[in-house]
């Protein structure tokens, strides 16, 4: 097979590119050379001393420095490859023009070809990098887990019917069409009897099933760069994920029986049953592990550092378990990630959430890069058998089958959809059916003995992959622009949207009930109810289990906004919607409200005063936040955001000044919701137990220092420090707490402060029980804010 090492380099216009390549060559040199040398190296230096039975014992000088490559060979090579992949990724983004024109996947394959060529030139054996075991067990899972964990559930479920149609029926159609027609073409070689004649029907069908599956890795790689609208993205992507079950069944079916030569109706029937088992079994296995993971995460409040590990390990085990039974590992992984996510996220700390997110992204990114590079390398290596007819017919048939399948299926599907798929949509779906490394690996798995045409198959598969990735991948972006396909909208959900969406959900459910029509909303509502009633109680720790969706969303929004505020310096003008505070600690069945004193409603502040207060609050937001964080001994050790003590003292001073300023303001209990609050304060509120019913502890015990962890008490009279006593529950600023102080000084007997000050329960207030959830929540919240820029904010699980 003519080596493709003759591929020309992409235009190296920048010195960085050259430098990068130089580094690459250097690395290769280092890795390739020792490979040859290592064989002849005597590595057992340390055994020589004990080698007593040897007659010709020669005493060598003690080796001060020695080279022992074999010792570290495997991990070293793995690391080299990973490093290469990462450097390549770096390199591409240093060349802006290039990454705009050519999708990354193409560049990576090119690099792989280069590397493969270089290795071959160096005369070494190209390592069988795309070994199927390596691929399926190590390279593929991170990508799928990343996809599954962050799968947007709502659009996925809404379009599930369509996706399943494309995945199942579409793939079946593709497989049989391509396989059948290939066989027909192979048979009609009249004049010169070529080797194609030997190709029988079943191997053709097997080939068809391998090459017809849309590949999630390739789809992800290309679609991520073109940012099309959510619907199309989820359609193609969902299809690529779900067709795994079909591919697995077809592959095994045809592989099994191509030795025998015939497939009976019974086998076909068993195949269908097998498909159901594979698909549903995979999903079940995944869901089971997902629930286990969710359940485990319920108890991780004391060991936050290993929380991400549970997510990864359970998911991987789900994949392996499914693979063990020859079920669909991909579906298991998706199910696991999707099922566990809402519950795990309710339980884990913010830091863990960030960790999980970034680890998944990192691993999947590296995996993807490696896969493409290996694809290139494996192309260079390998026994290729180029057959013009076979290959070209395959490529053509793939395209034709895809288009026909999509058009035909859309025609049927549109009868059942509310939002129909337009021609543009169909085109993108058809055009986006990229093949990738999975097809190659499946082909690679074929046994040479049973399939003498394996070489030809592999060549054809690679050609198809190259064609789809290069041609379709490169042209899809301009086509999307040309056809003016709707792009992805930057989703920043507002609280309004959330409220109204929920409202509409209820409305539609009601209307459906009135019509007696058990539609989409009806079942969703039922599922939601079930989830709320039983599942959440089991799987979510503590009080979060009762938190309504809206509150959780609201809370997240507030947190994000406050984090952004703090990160940008704290002194900027707050956006018009100042975060108000939503108390977490009040999420419980409402007890009969305590006898309320007169003032329940928020008294109206004169606007001027309000502004003043806002300004004051704004300028102190950051400091109070930091201050509150520092003194919690239950946070992870060495919180990087911890301030020094001196800093705190200064802040304390400022707070006292602030107090004096507000002292002359009216006696109002609460500042209207305009008060900006810090996440920490909110968390502190969270952390205070559920039974702190707006009673400032200090009121109860005079000025005793609360032993509570989040109570930051430096001195006995620190109750004048507002933050400690801020009831995050109320829309109140830390400063209003000062008011409370004033208030208290004014009238000591005030015992129901309208929830202004949520003091963490002091001694008498059930320290035992309240302490636990308190710490738990506090730890949850005091965490690394993490990057928020491209934070993919989770949608509610069951919206």
């Amino acid at each position: 097979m003519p080596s493709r090492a003759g591929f020309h380099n992409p235009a190296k216009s920048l010195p960085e590119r050259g430098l990068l390549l130089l580094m690459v060559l250097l690395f290769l040199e280092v890795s390739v050379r020792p490979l040859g040398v290592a064989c002849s190296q005597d590595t057992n230096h340390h055994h020589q001393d004990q080698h007593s039975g040897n007659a010709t014992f020669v005493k060598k000088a003690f080796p001060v420095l020695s080279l022992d490559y074999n010792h570290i060979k495997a991990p070293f090579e793995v690391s080299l490859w990973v490093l290469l992949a990462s450097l390549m990724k770096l390199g591409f983004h240093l060349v802006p023009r290039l990454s705009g024109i050519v999708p990354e996947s193409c560049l990576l394959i090119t690099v792989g070809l280069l590397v493969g060529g270089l290795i071959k030139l160096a005369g070494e054996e190209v390592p069988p990098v795309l070994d199927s075991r390596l691929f399926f067990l190590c390279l593929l899972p991170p990508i799928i887990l990343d996809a599954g964990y962050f799968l947007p559930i709502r659009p996925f479920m809404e379009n599930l019917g369509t996706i399943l149609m494309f995945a199942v029926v579409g793939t079946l159609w593709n497989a049989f069409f391509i396989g059948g027609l290939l066989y027909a073409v192979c048979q009609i070689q009249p004049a010169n009897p070529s080797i194609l004649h030997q190709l029988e029907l079943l191997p053709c069908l097997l080939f068809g099933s391998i090459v017809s599956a849309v590949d999630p890795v390739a789809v992800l790689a290309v679609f991520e760069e073109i940012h099309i609208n959510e619907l199309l993205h989820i359609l193609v992507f969902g299809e690529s994920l779900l067709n795994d079950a079909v591919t697995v069944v077809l592959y095994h079916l045809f592989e099994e029986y191509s030795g025998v030569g015939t497939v009976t109706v019974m086998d076909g029937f068993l195949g269908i049953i097998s498909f159901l088992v594979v698909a549903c079994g995979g999903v079940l296995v995944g869901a089971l592990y997902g629930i286990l993971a969710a359940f485990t995460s319920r108890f991780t409040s004391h060991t936050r550092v290993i929380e991400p590990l549970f997510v990864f390990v359970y998911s991987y085990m789900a994949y392996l378990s499914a693979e063990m039974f020859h079920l669909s590992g991909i579906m298991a992984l998706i199910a696991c990630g999707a099922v566990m996510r809402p519950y795990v996220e309710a339980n884990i700390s913010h830091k863990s959430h960030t960790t999980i997110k970034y680890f998944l992204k990192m691993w999947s990114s590296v995996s993807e890069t490696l896969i493409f590079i290996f694809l290139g390398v494996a192309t260079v290596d390998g026994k290729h058998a180029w057959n013009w007819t076979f290959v070209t017919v395959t490529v053509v048939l793939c395209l034709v089958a895809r288009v026909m399948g999509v058009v035909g299926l859309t025609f049927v599907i549109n009868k059942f959809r509310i939002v129909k798929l337009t021609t543009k949509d169909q085109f993108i779906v058809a055009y986006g059916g990229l093949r990738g490394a999975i097809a190659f690996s499946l082909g690679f798995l074929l046994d040479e003995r049973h399939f003498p045409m394996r070489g030809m198959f592999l060549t054809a598969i690679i050609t198809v992959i190259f064609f789809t990735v290069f041609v379709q991948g490169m042209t899809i972006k301009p086509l999307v622009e040309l056809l003016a396909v709707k792009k992805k909208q930057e989703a920043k959900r507002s609280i309004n949207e959330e409220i109204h969406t929920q409202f509409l959900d209820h409305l539609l459910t009601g209307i459906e009930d009135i019509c007696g029509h058990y539609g989409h909303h009806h079942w969703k509502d039922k599922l939601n109810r079930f989830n709320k009633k039983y599942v959440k109680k089991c799987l979510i720790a503590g009080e979060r289990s009762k938190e309504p969706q809206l509150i959780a969303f609201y809370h997240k929004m507030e947190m994000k906004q406050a984090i952004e505020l703090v990160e940008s310096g704290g002194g900027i003008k707050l956006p018009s919607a100042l975060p108000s505070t939503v108390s977490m600690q009040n999420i419980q069945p409402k007890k009969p409200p305590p006898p309320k004193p007169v003032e329940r409603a928020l008294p109206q502040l004169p606007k001027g005063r309000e502004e003043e207060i806002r300004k004051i609050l704004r300028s102190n937001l950051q400091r109070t936040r930091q201050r509150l964080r520092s003194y919690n001994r239950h946070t992870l050790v060495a919180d990087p955001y911890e301030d020094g003590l001196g800093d705190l003292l200064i802040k304390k001073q400022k707070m006292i000044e602030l107090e004096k300023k507000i002292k002359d303001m009216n006696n109002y209990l609460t500042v209207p919701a305009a008060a900006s609050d810090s996440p920490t304060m909110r968390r502190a509120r969270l952390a205070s137990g559920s039974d702190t019913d707006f009673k400032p502890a200090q009121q109860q015990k005079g000025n005793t220092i609360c032993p509570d962890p989040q109570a930051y008490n430096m001195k006995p009279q620190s109750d004048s420090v507002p933050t400690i006593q801020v009831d995050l529950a109320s829309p109140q600023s830390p400063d209003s707490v000062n008011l409370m102080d004033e208030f208290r000084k004014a009238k000591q007997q005030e015992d129901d402060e309208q929830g202004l000050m949520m003091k963490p329960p002091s001694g008498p207030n059930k320290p035992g029980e309240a302490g636990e959830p308190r710490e738990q929540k506090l730890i949850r919240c005091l965490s690394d804010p993490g990057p928020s820029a491209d934070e993919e904010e989770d949608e509610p699980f069951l919206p």
Partner: protein
Amino acid sequence: MGSNSSSMNNIPNAEQLVQETGFSAAHILRLYERFQFLDKDDTGQLRPEDFGAVRELAMNPIGDRIISAFFSPGQETLDFASFVRVLAHFRPADSNRTRDGAQPEPANSSMGKLKFAFQLYDQDRDGKISRAELLQVLRAMLGMQVTEEQLQSIAERAIQEADFDQDDAISFDEFRKSLEKVNIDHKMSIRFLS
């Protein structure tokens, strides 16, 4: 065609309804059957109590609002035509309807759907969702699980986010704007499979 003797002839103004609402004849028939099911005492009119036959509505947080939306303000009874007209809002939008300026906005267009939803919020029909009205809705949806302060905060924030003309209430345009990312056609449509 069910076992009961209803056919298109029994339904008053059937053709007119078909014209007006865009439902197909089969849909109208099905809705008529449902109407008769709800109308237990066979008067040809529905009263709010009749909707109690739909058990799930009792569990719906805004169930009573939905029921009262069927009845025009001041009316105690509901005839079939009005029933159908309200439900017409939830028909999937016709994508190929030609934009004719003279034609009134059909009930099942995005605008029509949004107007209907807006009316559910705006009980006093003054064209705005005031803070109190928003609070009522929030209270209904979130129920017993949250405190008054939280509701106030959420309502406050919602109004601040949406209110562009600073009148402390959400007008229809502001309402529409805050839902611009949601595909209303999709969200507020029921497939009346006949």
